[in-house]
């Protein structure tokens, strides 16, 4: 129970952060909104930005052993050609990205993906804000 609450609180915090990145909300308007309402309010209009997804994708990539500095990674970067990965390596990355964004790469998509940008686009298209999906505890 306690754990569930923690998880919920954490995902809410995330949503708020994301929402801020989308469009800065005047502090005065944020103040009176109650916690639960706040989530509802922002989620209905917010989605991830490309910049945000890319930044988080790069930090996911950073948890792997990279042969290039992460600062050189961009939308055009290709896993095999630029990062020197093999098919197992970048499929590992794909699954890590799935966990980070709570998406699943379809088999036919995953088999075709070559670049970081293709991942980012797919994530943007398939991302569902956490609170609109079922509670992770009962999913």
């Amino acid at each position, binding site marked *: 129970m306690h*754990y569930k609450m923690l998880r919920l609180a954490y995902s809410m915090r995330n949503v708020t952060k994301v929402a801020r990145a989308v469009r800065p909300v005047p502090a005065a308007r944020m103040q009176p909104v109650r916690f639960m309402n706040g989530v509802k309010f922002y989620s209905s209009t917010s989605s991830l930005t490309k910049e945000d997804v890319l930044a988080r994708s790069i930090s996911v990539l950073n948890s792997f052993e990279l042969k290039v500095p992460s600062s050189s990674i961009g939308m055009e970067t290709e896993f095999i050609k630029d990062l020197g990965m093999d*098919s*197992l390596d970048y499929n590992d990355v*794909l*699954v890590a990205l*799935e966990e980070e964004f709570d998406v699943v*790469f379809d088999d036919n998509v*995953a088999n075709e993906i070559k670049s970081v940008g293709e991942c980012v686009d797919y994530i943007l298209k398939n991302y569902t804000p956490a609170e609109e999906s079922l509670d992770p505890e009962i999913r």
Partner: protein
Amino acid sequence: MASAQEILSLYRQFLRYSRQFENYNFREYFLRRSREEFRKLKEFDGDTSAIIEKAKKELGVLRRQSKISQMYHFDKLVVEKVKKH
């Protein structure tokens, strides 16, 4: 003979279920072993169908057990970051 794409699809599923273990030691173990085994499989030169069949059975075990692991929560270990969604 399984195609390279089938094997990669299987690999992703192994990693997905491994990552879903709530227990740190089991999660790390199955990630490590999945990586090791698929790397061996990639270099394996010959008929892979028996190996793939066995892997599919093991995947069923992972799928069930990762779910069970999610049903029981214990404190995080001192080497484990508390965050996680």
